């Protein structure tokens, strides 16, 4: 078999060395009742060429990936991925190694993580960042758990309803086991699309553990993060910001500067392919004072015996393999290769490039909205937005479906998640959309209204 190098002669020699006659003898101790039923009823193995053909046929059955003009966003964003990112993450040395337990044999991975951690602190304006989380949603949940470890006596978490539905659901699931914690949802202002800070004020008392806001939020809207943090801090609570569109951090004030204590987010925009939604890469940054409550791996700088700079996993006493049931998290395998992709992407973009990209996204999204308005549609919210916005459009779900016939993925109908936003479409515009794409969107949606 092509993946297994043992020849018949090898097997015979090995069995001889072990002192048994058949491989079966090595598993004879497994209860016969189990062995007898263990055959796997799957078709015979295929040649590589056949596997390739089979998978290509499945890939071809996803017309949505190909030829459609798309304005889908909603937590996953269409950005150009430079070829250099793929060239680097496909290096066997990165792709086929594992968690850098042996520092001396893993300086490639550890240094890249150290660079990732640094980039995330620069983007978020905070002091420490970890080596990666699974995705933005689970990172948000972990941030809430971290806040709970920081303030174990507090019991209420205020979650903005303008956070992406998947993020809210994930926080809910992670918190479901902590019966002592109460989750309250903060409504959003139906006019502006920002989180209703008056209702935050109402819950901002000494029970309040943390408030969680999107930045931008699930409507693409830029939350008044600074004001929210002020309110939370006033009550001694922590502020968590969650960013699904990482490119926004190239332009917006960094969460740390606005008083945020834990900034988490999704790094998929930093050089990861869409891949039907996974893997993404969660990031998390916080104040240095809270580092020991952080979940996930951390790489630190140190020296080798001869004084050379070196990098290694550190502060592992927070982690499951040391701390077991008292660990800050159960995370073990994280999303290291995705963090590497992000590191390469951000290094390529650089200081100017990332900002320019962010500005371009803002520009195109606002252009698109202006043209849609000219075509008779209405923005649902008034607050400033980044590269995503909500338009009001009667019968949005059917409109979106009809647009598909014209090879257009016009946006995500919000109704399934927000019954109160039934006639709306969440439209995301990135640098991948040309003016003619926008024209097409306006024609199709404009005609339909």
């Amino acid at each position, binding site marked *: 078999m092509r993946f297994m190098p043992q020849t018949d002669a090898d097997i015979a020699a090995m069995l001889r060395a072990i002192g048994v006659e058949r491989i079966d003898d090595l598993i004879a101790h497994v209860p016969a009742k189990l062995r007898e039923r263990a055959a796997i009823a*799957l078709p015979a193995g295929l040649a590589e060429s056949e596997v390739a053909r089979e998978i290509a046929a499945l890939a071809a059955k996803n017309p949505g990936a190909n030829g459609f003009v798309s304005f889908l966003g909603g937590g996953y964003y269409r950005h150009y991925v430079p070829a250099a990112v793929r060239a680097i993450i496909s290096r066997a040395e990165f792709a086929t190694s594992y968690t850098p337990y042996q520092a001396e044999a893993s300086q490639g991975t550890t240094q890249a993580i*150290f660079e990732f951690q640094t980039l995330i602190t*620069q983007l978020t304006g905070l002091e420490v960042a970890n080596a990666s989380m*699974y*995705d933005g949603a689970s990172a948000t949940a972990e941030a809430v758990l971290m806040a709970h470890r920081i303030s174990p006596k507090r019991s209420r978490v205020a979650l903005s309803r303008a956070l992406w539905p998947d993020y809210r659901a994930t926080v809910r699931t992670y918190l479901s086991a902590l019966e002592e914690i109460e989750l309250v949802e903060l409504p959003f202002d139906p006019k502006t699309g920002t989180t209703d800070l008056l209702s935050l004020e109402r819950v901002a008392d000494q029970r309040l553990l943390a408030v969680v806001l999107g930045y931008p939020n699930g409507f693409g809207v830029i939350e008044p993060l600074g004001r929210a943090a002020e309110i939370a801090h006033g009550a001694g609570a922590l502020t968590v910001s969650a960013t699904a569109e990482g490119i926004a951090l190239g332009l917006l004030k960094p969460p740390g500067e606005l008083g945020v204590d834990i900034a988490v987010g999704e790094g998929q925009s930093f050089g990861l392919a869409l*891949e039907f939604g996974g893997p993404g890469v969660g990031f998390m940054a916080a104040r240095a004072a809270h580092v020991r409550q952080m979940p996930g791996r951390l790489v630190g700088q140190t*020296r080798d015996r001869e004084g050379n*700079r070196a990098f290694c996993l550190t502060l592992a006493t927070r*982690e499951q393999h040391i701390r077991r049931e008292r660990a800050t998290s159960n995370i073990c*395998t994280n999303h290291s290769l995705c963090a590497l992709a992000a590191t390469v992407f951000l290094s390529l973009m650089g200081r100017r490039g990332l900002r320019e990209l962010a500005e371009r996204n803002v520009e195109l999204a606002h252009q698109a909205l202006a043209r849609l308005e000219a075509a008779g549609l209405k923005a649902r919210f008034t607050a400033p937005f980044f590269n995503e916005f909500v338009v009001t459009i009667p019968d949005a779900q059917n409109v979106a479906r009809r647009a598909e016939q014209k090879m257009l993925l016009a946006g995500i109908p919000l109704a399934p998640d927000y019954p109160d936003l039934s006639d709306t479409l969440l439209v995301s515009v990135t640098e991948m959309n040309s003016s003619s794409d926008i024209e097409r969107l306006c024609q199709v949606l404009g005609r339909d209204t």
Partner: protein
Amino acid sequence: MAGAKNIKMPASDEKHTQPTTPAPRARVPLIFELSSEGRRGVDLPAREAGAKSGAEILGAELCRANLDGFPELSEPQVMRHFLRLSQLNFCQATQFYPLGSCTMKYNPALNDEAAGLEGFAALHPATPPRLAQGALELMARMESALAEITGMDAVSLHPAAGAQGELTGLLMTRAYHRKRGEPRHKVIIPDTAHGTNPASCTLAGFEVKVARSNKRGFIEAAEIRRMLDGDVAALMVTNPNTLGNFEPEIQEIADALHQRGALLYLDGANLNALMGVAKPGHMGADIVQLNLHKTFSTPHGGGGPGAGPVAVKRHLEPFLPNPRLKKTASGWEFDSNRPDSIGRLRAYHGNFEMIVRAYAYILALGGEGLAEVSRLAILNANYVRKRLEARYPSASAEPSMHECVLTHDLEERAGVSTFEIAKRMLDFGIHPPTIYFPLVVHGALMIEPTETESKEVLDNFVAVMEAIYEEALSEPETVKNAPNTLALRRVDEAEAARHPILRWTAPGR
């Protein structure tokens, strides 16, 4: 390089060994140190003239000053930087990497290409299912393949990794007992368990009860029965256990649990031992999580991404995370309208890219091929164990499955620790096994060769291990000072923890 003169490599038969000398390499500056104002690694398409800039549109109060300290490099520099970094790593593709419990097997080249196909790579997760039927069908086929392999009834591909799979399973356990109207609060875990198991229990709100393994390293049905009370929600156990041994009383234990209304959670990270040998479902498992990055050959990526599907028996199906795949008249759909579901643990539909790779692997091997995988993984582990027996005895007298846990007397005889033995292996170009795990074994070396390594590689490994043993006795300093031939000498991990430096800062700031 000081110490380099001490190195004696074991004599090796040219025909039958992979090369063993490791690859010392240069240190590489940080990307920030290579930066210079004004460089750029990407160009954006030209802007339409006259449009307002993003900062003008949003207004200065929303915008940051600049990205201080962010690197500025050209594309060739970025490329060279990361290629040089890559050269500092050991990896499975170029080295023997018998990291126990991690199943570092060969990652077929095709699978990376499969995952990168436009039809997957460019597929947005919010694409309406009717335009993504290929992806949904692949997921559905993967679910049923995993169900067949594990002998379970239903599978969810949702969790991002093994540990998240564990959490998923434990939250389902919780939900299951609540739904039955008897919330339970304790989970039993053997003392040999992987660290994620107790951590996941805590995260799922359970109190951990540690079951002592017996002298043979096994958990006994008697012990479990003794610990069982109406508040025990489940037993969480790895089989083969972390000693690499098959738990002989697993079925009896399952029966005991079920009698008391508790569930058996089987940590499936060690499934590489079981395919075609014994199905978790037949052992009585109610829940199993699988690590696609282990048994199913998706690359480990320097620490992920992986994927940790959960498989369950029918009675737990309603609790599986959202969304579920559902076959309708018009094709596959996602269904989130499931009142008993524990909800979701992440955005969208799972680590789809890993699922594509693992599915390609399953297609390549087929049912019999997967069984052969486990048989050869078991053969390899037992061969290494036997060959090393004289110097590194097995921590357990029981038959090994796909990995073996060895120990040694060098600490007593020569003051040489397992840690130092591991570092010395680096000089021979071998990635060390997992060490000091399971915790119950003194100075453990947990060796998992996997089925994709040849006899020659194992023979070379044995020769290296023997050489290190002799060397530890004859010139212990060489071992204690290792690595001696890499770009770096021993890295000071204690210092890193004492004075954490967790990011680069511009000099003078």
